[in-house]
């Protein structure tokens, strides 16, 4: 169902909506209203515009019935039922205001205030406190009990969490925080301790909030009606005065937020309850970790230098882009048209990404454009295009609420996509069954009220074997959905596939040994997936970042087609996108072989369209992919790079190879908000803008295009799209956009799946899921409903080919990598926030058995060596990883996680094989050689930055 966006729906209706075809008519204070069966009296009244006082009720949580402020009188019912917990019934007559109710409410409020500080004027919630509001509504004038009785006024504040305080003296024990932790977040970290008057909120598993099981999602803070749980930023700055709806710039969930402002100052981020991806929920990153946006490390002036060993020179934007343009033209003259290229950012907006690829294709005149999706979900694009016909996930996030069986493969949603994980866990609590295929015992395998029925802890690198074994069971045990296959899929491809997966060598008994998983478990999981009702697959980079990443994606699509689990709610194939705009950057034609909308550059009709619109001649041959650029740089034929919002020196595999390639280039232009690792090798630095400083759109993992709205002026003077425009113009290719909406209009004109997308339509709908065109004017929540985008679904053969990255006696362990909740990717943002309180360094997870045999203890420094390089981290001993497997995160550059990872990559897309590296681990006492070199180089670059020459009126001195 498409819900139209209505900003007025920010009113708290007290209890959640109920969905029913049956409508019930009742009378409230003489006015009649008809609402869906199951709706509470409170919500019905609120829909009529009738305010019933309430404290423990809020429409994001199920009714609780504890505050007793919302009592009403109902004809024919005894006593004074709570309107929040009383469902409507046909013909019911409700009175919300009677003298008796007034007395009761006032007397209950009197009890509240008899144990509440009277410091309203100096309270951080002043002006936005529900207790204050309701006290006003009920007309409390005195507290006859006095203030000398038993109370909690001296309770001590817990300020341990870096983002919010817990002040128990202000707590009214409404349980909203506890319920938000349970219902909204699904962590169950909060509870009430004590009984009766001693009831107090407590975070479980620690002495204080920071030390507890709390994941700091902030749902409790948002739910709190008083100042008991309050953002430190509000304590410091006061209540915000205006708010702007925008979209989070962290992961691919794409949460909608209200940026609450005071002038140009961001006071807090509050997830938007009308947000169609997040429904008012968020995680610690989106809600709290925005301090980086105004961090002192922000570089806000363009800088140039001739050599990377030179100090930086601050210059004007004009000078910077003129210098960059002259360098690019010089390089093209000297080394040829194809000697330069660009990298678009999956962190930037669709409009910005579109402009960068346009600049490369139109102004550079080549197709040397690529994006960081290369290193994450390029196999998704390829694999789903081949099988289903469209390079995107098939569902909305909400679809999971219709799933009966959920298969999570190579993904760790509770850390990497926390808001979706909360929704998934809610569905599990409702009874859906879970299969996890992951080498590591991720939280979902065994967490509170969420447990995997099967955890297939396969060896890294054996995904395709596992998928084939699952398929084998489905085919040979007669679990196919033959009717779906006959109607919807290519018959001959299916026949080939059936023959292939039926072979004995694809049985769980054979492949299970390769995966290291008992055949019986594989069989049971396959049966559950095929026969458990609506089955949905969610997968992440644990599937794609392999030498057979594309094969695995096709294997997943095969499973969904074979069981008919595609084309409706509750099923589907769902890539969990790592970054906020990975989907968008791919959609926008960031790959060297594809123009916007996934159309190959060799397609003359499409190319002609773009040539006419852009007024240039386009190349028909695909350009260089990122790894090819590095190779070409080392080979001397690739000399210049325009890199926007991407830190390849930290994020790409085999760091030493990358930095060598960057060092070999003559003009590296980095546009970023920080002087990141790549910028240490740059010649031109263009100050980037954060998501708070620009207008645009992001497209999340469910193809949802959401508006990003500017809440403050760009600190560096230009939004990123304006920087690209300036560079294009300096290159002599005119770009004249006055607003990103004009860029979107151009995208819509040129991209069939975006025809109906415009800022006006986005304003109207809140967000839109592409395809959004004449055939689907309101967007497409679920894809492939009637038929596949490519017509008939195509089963692809997925022979298992072991990776070349094999363990041997020298490298006996397999390293795999991932993310942690509090940090994000290369950490450029989150490392510059208080999130370091949870994770201040990357650690190497190692199984106790492997640790013991190497004499490694918890916290020891260990050297990790692979065929590509060595680094040193501290060890964390845990059974989360199986024996033979080690794991680390890559959030800190000095960790050098990617010094170890190799050049191996996906056969189809060159997506690096981050997830499998053969290593050896041993106890050490000093950093690795790489780390020493890295530190020396970083120190030198920091000095060059610190000693930068300030911009003066005169011309920069570094001109050639």
């Amino acid at each position, binding site marked *: 169902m498409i819900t139209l966006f209505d900003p007025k729906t920010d009113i708290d209706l007290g209890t959640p909506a109920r969905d029913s075809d049956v409508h019930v008519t009742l009378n409230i204070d003489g006015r009649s209203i008809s609402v869906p069966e199951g709706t509470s009296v409170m919500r019905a009244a609120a829909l009529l515009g009738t305010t019933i006082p309430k404290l423990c009720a809020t429409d994001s949580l199920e*009714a*609780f*019935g*504890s*505050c*007793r402020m919302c*009592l009403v009188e109902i004809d024919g019912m005894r*006593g*004074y039922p*709570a309107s*929040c*917990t*009383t*469902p409507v019934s046909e013909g019911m007559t409700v009175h919300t205001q009677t003298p*008796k109710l007034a*007395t*009761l409410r006032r*007397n*209950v409020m009197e*009890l*509240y205030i*008899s*144990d509440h500080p009277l410091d309203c004027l100096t309270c951080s919630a002043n002006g936005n406190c529900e207790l204050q509001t309701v006290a006003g509504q009920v007309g409390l004038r005195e507290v*006859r*009990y006095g203030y000398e*009785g*038993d109370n909690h006024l001296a309770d001590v504040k817990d300020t341990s969490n870096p983002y919010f305080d817990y002040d128990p003296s202000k707590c*009214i*024990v409404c*349980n909203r925080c506890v319920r938000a932790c349970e219902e909204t977040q699904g962590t169950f970290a909060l*509870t*009430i301790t*004590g*009984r*009766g*008057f*001693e*009831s107090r909120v407590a975070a479980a598993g620690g002495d204080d909030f920071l030390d507890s099981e709390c994941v700091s999602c902030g749902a409790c803070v948002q739910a709190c009606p008083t100042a008991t749980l309050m953002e430190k930023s509000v304590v410091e700055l006061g209540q915000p005065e205006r708010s702007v709806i925008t979209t989070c710039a962290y992961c691919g969930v794409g949460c909608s937020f209200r940026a609450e402002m005071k002038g140009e100052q961001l006071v807090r981020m509050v997830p938007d309850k009308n947000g169609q991806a997040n429904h008012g929920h968020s995680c610690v990153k989106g809600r709290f970790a925005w301090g980086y946006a105004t961090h002192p490390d922000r570089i806000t002036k363009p800088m140039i230098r001739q050599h990377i060993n030179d100090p930086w020179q601050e210059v004007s934007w004009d000078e910077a882009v003129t210098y960059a343009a002259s360098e690019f033209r010089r390089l093209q003259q000297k080394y040829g048209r194809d000697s330069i290229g660009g990298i678009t950012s999956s962190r930037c907006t669709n409009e910005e990404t579109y402009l960068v690829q346009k600049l490369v294709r139109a102004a550079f005149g080549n197709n040397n454009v690529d994006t960081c999706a290369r290193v994450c979900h390029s196999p998704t694009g390829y694999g789903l295009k081949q099988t289903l016909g469209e390079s995107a996930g098939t569902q909305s996030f909400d679809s999971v609420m219709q799933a009966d069986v959920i298969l999570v493969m190579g993904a760790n949603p509770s850390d990497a996509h926390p808001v979706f994980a909360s929704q998934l866990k809610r569905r599990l609590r409702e009874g859906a069954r879970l299969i996890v295929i992951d080498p590591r015992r991720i939280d979902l395998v065994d967490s509170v009220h969420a447990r995997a029925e099967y955890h297939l802890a396969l060896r890294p690198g054996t995904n395709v074997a596992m998928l084939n074994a699952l398929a084998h069971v489905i085919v040979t045990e007669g679990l196919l959905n033959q009717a779906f296959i006959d109607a919807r899929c290519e018959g001959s491809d299916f026949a080939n596939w059936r023959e292939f997966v039926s072979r004995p060598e694809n049985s769980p008994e054979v492949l299970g040994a390769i995966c290291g998983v008992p055949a019986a478990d594989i069989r049971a999981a396959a049966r559950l997936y095929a026969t458990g009702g609506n089955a949905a697959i969610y997968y992440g980079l644990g599937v794609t970042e392999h030498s057979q990443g594309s094969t695995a994606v096709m294997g997943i699509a095969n499973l969904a087609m074979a069981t008919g689990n595609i084309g409706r709610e509750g099923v589907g194939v769902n890539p969990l996108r790592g970054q906020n705009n990975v989907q968008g950057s791919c959609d926008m034609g960031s790959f060297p072989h594809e123009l916007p909308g996934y159309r190959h550059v060799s397609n003359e009709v499409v190319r002609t369209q773009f040539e006419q619109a852009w007024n240039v001649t386009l190349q028909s041959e695909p350009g260089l992919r990122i790894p090819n650029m590095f190779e070409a740089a080392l080979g001397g034929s690739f000399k210049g790079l325009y890199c926007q919002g991407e830190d390849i020196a930290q994020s790409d595999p085999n760091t030493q190879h990358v930095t060598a390639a960057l060092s070999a280039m003559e003009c590296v232009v980095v546009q970023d908000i920080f002087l990141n690792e790549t910028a240490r090798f740059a010649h031109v630095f263009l100050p980037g803008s954060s998501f708070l400083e620009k207008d645009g759109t992001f497209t999340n993992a469910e193809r949802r295009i959401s508006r990003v709205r500017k809440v403050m002026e760009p600190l560096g003077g230009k939004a990123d799209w304006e920087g690209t425009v300036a560079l294009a113009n300096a290159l002599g290719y005119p770009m004249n956009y006055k607003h990103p909406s004009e860029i979107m209009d151009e995208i819509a004109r040129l991209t069939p799946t975006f025809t109906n997308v415009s800022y006006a339509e986005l304003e109207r709908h809140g967000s839109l899921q592409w395809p959004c065109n004449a055939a689907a004017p309101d967007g497409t929540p679920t894809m492939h409903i009637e038929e596949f985008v490519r017509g008939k679904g195509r089963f692809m053969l997925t022979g298992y080919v072991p990776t070349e990255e094999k363990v041997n006696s020298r490298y006996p362990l397999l390293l795999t990598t991932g993310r942690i909740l509090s940090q994000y990717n290369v950490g450029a943002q989150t490392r510059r926030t208080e999130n370091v309180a949870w994770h201040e360094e990357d650690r190497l997870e190692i199984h106790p058995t492997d640790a013991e045999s190497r004499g490694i203890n918890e916290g020891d420094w260990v050297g990790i060596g692979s065929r590509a390089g060595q680094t040193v981290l501290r060890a964390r001993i845990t059974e989360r990883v199986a024996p033979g497997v080690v794991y680390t995160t890559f959030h800190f550059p000095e960790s050098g996680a990617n010094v170890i990872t190799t050049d191996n990559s996906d056969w189809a897309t060159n997506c690096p094989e981050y997830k499998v590296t053969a290593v050896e681990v041993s106890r050490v006492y000093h950093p690795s050689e790489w780390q020493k070199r890295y530190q020396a180089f970083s120190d030198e670059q920091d000095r060059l930055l610190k000693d930068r020459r300030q911009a003066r009126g005169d011309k920069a001195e570094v001109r050639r």
Partner: protein
Amino acid sequence: MPTLYLPCDSLARAVGADEVATALITQAHERPLPLELQRTSSRGLYWLEPLLEVDTPQGRFGFGPLTAADVPSVLEALGDPSAHPLALGLVEDLPYLKTQQRLLFARAGITRPLSLDDYRAHGGFEGLNRSVTLGGEETATEVFDSGLRGRGGAAFPAGIKWRTVRLTEAAQKYIVCNADEGDSGTFADRMLMEGDPFLLIEGMAIAGLCVGATYGYIYVRSEYPDAVATLREALEIARSNGYLGANVGGSGLAFDMEVRVGAGAYICGEETALLDSLEGKRGIVRAKPPIPALKGLFGQPTLVHNVLTLASVPLILAKGAQFYRDYGMGRSLGTMPFQLAGNVRHGGLVERAFGLTLRELVDDYGGGTASGRPLKAAQVGGPLGAWVPPSQFDTPLDYEAFAAMGAMLGHGGVVVADDSLDMAQMARFAMEFCAEESCGKCTPCRIGSTRGVEVIDRLLAAPDASGRDEQVIILKDLCDTMQYGSLCALGGMVSFPVASALKHFPADFGLQPSEAEQ
């Protein structure tokens, strides 16, 4: 060889029954005097415990209360029992027992708790057998027609609950027995569980088969370890004899159950808090609706009943609804095991049809106060029941009659007080009890109970009439707020003991009658 009977009930044991038993066996062996000693349930004539009974041609002859020191003389007197100074005569002729209408406690003091033979010899499983023959629909009709109401205190018609659970479609349904008997002065549940556990099992099995529940839980308070042990053993016996398991009583239907032990919270006797506790959560009261019959344990339709309610069912099935509803008055049908405790001479269990007066109960059965001092009041229905002054003692024990005077029968506990009891302190205690046992969910109870203690303290400390008047108004307002504003009966009914104490005993608060009436 004479057969002797001595209760194994925990109250009898608390006053020395085990010592008496040991002495009997040892000394009989020494004499030697061959005899058989059976440990039975208790008659519930607690002031006579340990009550030893011996078979005579006329019937069972009683001695009591005994100590181990009386054993030699009792053994001597077995030939001519009436000569013994502690001889009581034929037990069933004791007026206290003879005048009772023992339906539910028909086997009390007669059978051995864990003897399936004894149970069957005294009508056991006749109800289940008839229920199996009747089928679920007619069983539910029998329960409905009997007029049985919930014995936990709320007195909700049991038949309506049964029909609701029966007609609600669900993959899993439950029977939950509330055996968290926490009311002051009550012991009927304990007596029944310790003394006649198969009766409860049979009642739950009938309920399970009738409503389509396949599993049951008995939630027993932790203070009842003997009841827990007895029930667990009885469950094993019942299971191995086919009364529980895959084919209950040959019905072809499955039902099984287990005992769960509470953790000392009074509030877990409230049915929804009990369900939360059973689910492994904090025992917190749930808002209703949804009612447990529709969404109870683990969100499934659940029939929650007190021990006495479930234990009444076998008899209703065995003898028919009409037999049961012939007892009682008005809408209070059947019998009620009243429990006499506190400052009363003859404390014990009195099962009578509804309708006798409180005076009959306290004076005729109880024999007045234990102290011999004048009677001051009786608290009926547990710690949240009203204090009833002697002027109201002629009120019949009937749910509606008690409700009409602002009191309640509750679970049938009657605590008697003499004139030395300070009713102001009892009112304060009621608030204190509520504060101690409040689950803390709803505000009127969570904060109100604590404020209640403080207000009563201020009232008692007030130096003059105007100060007292002020506090009386606040206290009455608070009682009203708690009664109408609280989520459950704990906060909702604490006003009963407070308001009744204030109303009937103003002097204890230092008030003139007129001050209390305002």
